[in-house]
Each structure stands twice: as C-alpha cells, then as structure tokens.
C-alpha cells in the first residue's frame, strides 16, 4: 500500500506540474526536501541519544519492569501477543505519555525503542506484526491532552486564550483513538487468522 501511495504522490505531482508549467518548482522542492530530511535526522540524533541513554538507565535499574507490571491489564488487552511484563511496554507507555503531554521530540525515541523490541518478537522481520500496527494506530491517532505546538502558535498569533482549545482537542483525539483501536482490532482479525 505504501508503495502505491509513494508512487501516486510522485506521479500525480509530476504529471500535474508538466501540465501547469510548474516543473521547475518541483525540481527545487525535491532537492530541498532531500536536504531537509537529512537535517531533520541529524537534529533528531541528539534527542535520540539523550532519551536512549535515559532508557538504558531505566532498563538496568528495573524501572522498566515496574511500569510494565502496572499497565499489564490494559497492555495485555491491547497487545495480546506480547508477554505481559515485556520491556517493550515501558517504551510504549513513555511514548504515549510524551504524546499526551505534547512532547513530540520525546515521543519519537521511545517509539523507536518500542519498535526495536517489538521487532525482536516479530516472527517475520520484513512485515509489520500485529502489535506493531496497534502501537502505530495509537501513535498516529495520538491521544493528546496538551497540544503544545498549537498552543504556542495560537499565542504567537495573538489569541486571547491560547489554551481554550484543550478540551475540544481532548474530545476529538479521544474519538480518533477509540476508533483507531476498534478498526485495528477488526483488520487484525481479518489479516492474522
């Protein structure tokens, strides 16, 4: 599916640009996006090092296992194929907590750590496993309590009450997340029988 989406973005974009005489802009945009992607991953590297270091401390001290035990009832329901006190759950909880609080750049390192652990449990390492997709569903729907970026943009744009959107955001994001979990369940049953 991603292959098709990727190709469609390129093919539709280039065809459209050919007909509208926008093709010069496409070349520039493609090169600058490539450079930006590298810049973004380098910037991410620093934050990744910081959180990966802290995670290692949490692992060695056993903090990881405590958290995993605490959330075992919910985690067991969401991720039935992952062992109940697996260290993956610590990274998952930290990732979701970072999302709740709107700390985008703290969420990614924990998310990547969770993926790394889920990959070790994956029977087919080239294909996404059921727990990976459940985790991604939670992530893209991304239940958010404090959308920090939006709040700061609102404040910068002269809003009288930048945080007034918090309650509405919580409601919308909760609907999205509940739906994502249900939809994931249905598709999982269909794909992994």
């Amino acid at each position: 599916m991603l292959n098709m989406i990727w190709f469609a973005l390129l093919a539709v974009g280039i065809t459209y640009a050919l007909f509208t005489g926008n093709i010069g802009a496409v070349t520039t945009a493609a090169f600058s996006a490539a450079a930006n992607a590298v810049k973004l991953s380098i910037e991410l590297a620093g934050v990744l090092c910081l959180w990966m270091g802290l995670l290692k401390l949490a692992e060695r001290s056993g903090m990881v296992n405590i958290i995993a035990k605490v959330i075992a009832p919910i985690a067991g329901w969401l991720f039935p194929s992952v062992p109940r006190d697996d260290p993956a759950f610590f990274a998952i909880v930290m990732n979701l907590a970072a999302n709740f609080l709107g700390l985008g750049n703290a969420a990614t390192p924990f998310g990547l750590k969770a993926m790394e652990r889920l990959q070790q449990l994956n029977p087919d390492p080239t294909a996404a496993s059921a727990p990976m997709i459940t985790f991604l569903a939670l992530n893209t729907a991304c239940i958010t309590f404090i959308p920090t970026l939006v709040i700061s943009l609102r404040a910068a744009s002269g809003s009288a009450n930048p945080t007034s959107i918090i309650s509405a955001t919580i409601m919308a994001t909760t609907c999205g997340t509940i739906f994502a979990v249900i939809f994931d369940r249905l598709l999982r049953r269909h794909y992994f029988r």
Partner: protein
Amino acid sequence: MLNYISLLAVPLILLLIPLYALIKKVPLYETFVDGAAEGWTVALKIMPFLVGMLVAIAVFRSSGAFAALANLLSPFCRALGIPVDVLPIALMRPLSGSGSLALTAEVFERYGPDSFIGMLASVMQGSTDTTFYILAVYFGSVGIKKYRYAPAVGLAADAISFISAVIVCRILYS
C-alpha cells in the same frame, strides 16, 4: 495547570530515572553513555526513509497538485458542513507536520486564532499526528518493508479525528 504538567514533565523524568538508577546502584554515567550510543545508529537508519517520504510529499505539494486536490474536494466538504478553509489542513496533516502547521498559521492570519475557523484549525492540528512520518520513521528504523494494514488504520483514524473535531467545535464554539 495542564500547561504546568507539560512544562515539568521532561525535567522530572530527567531527574527521576537517574535517581531510581542511583538507588538501585546502577553505574549511572557509563550506562547512560552506553544507551546514548544507540541514538546515532537509529538516526542514520531512519534517514533514507525520511528522504524518500519528504521528497515525494514535496513534489506533490510544490506541483500545485495538492491545492488542486483541495479544490476538487471542496464541494463534498460544503455538503458535509465542513468549512472549506480547513480542508487543506485536514489533507496536509497526515503528510507533513510542518506543512499543516504553516497552513494553520495562514488560517490564523486570515481569520484570527479565536474565530470559529481558527479554533477548528487548532483542534485539527492538535488532535492527530503526522501518520506518514510515523510510518516511515518507525517501520524504517527496524527494516519493515510490508506495512500491511497500518496505513489504512492510521489514515482512517485521522479522518475520524477530523470529523470529530468539526462536530466538537460546532457544539462547543458555534
């Protein structure tokens, strides 16, 4: 109050994890550095996936196809009672976080952040994440090639979040 929690979260984690490790007599600094070394490898691993994804999105956007798509869909939007001005944000949100944030800023400039459209744009921007970035980076970091039904779940969740945002904003703000 909620903002305060958000502000304190990172410093608190930076304190609590090492504190607990100290109590458990883990060699603090060596362990931290040992883990931090992995950060660089992960960053390198996700780089090609980011390049692929961001280039395709940039081509689509700069060609004018994105704006044309938004135009094409606007009659459906009107029929569903969704303000046409927020449609580009809804379409851009799963593709690019910075792109949709820029579109949100444009809406703020034109209508003001406290207008109905401004509120709706804020809720849309805040209630989902950049699905394609997450797919590319998370799956890329562990070498997953077959995404199975993950994009379907992610995009469907985005759509539901946006529709919920419209409904919630209509109830609360208009």
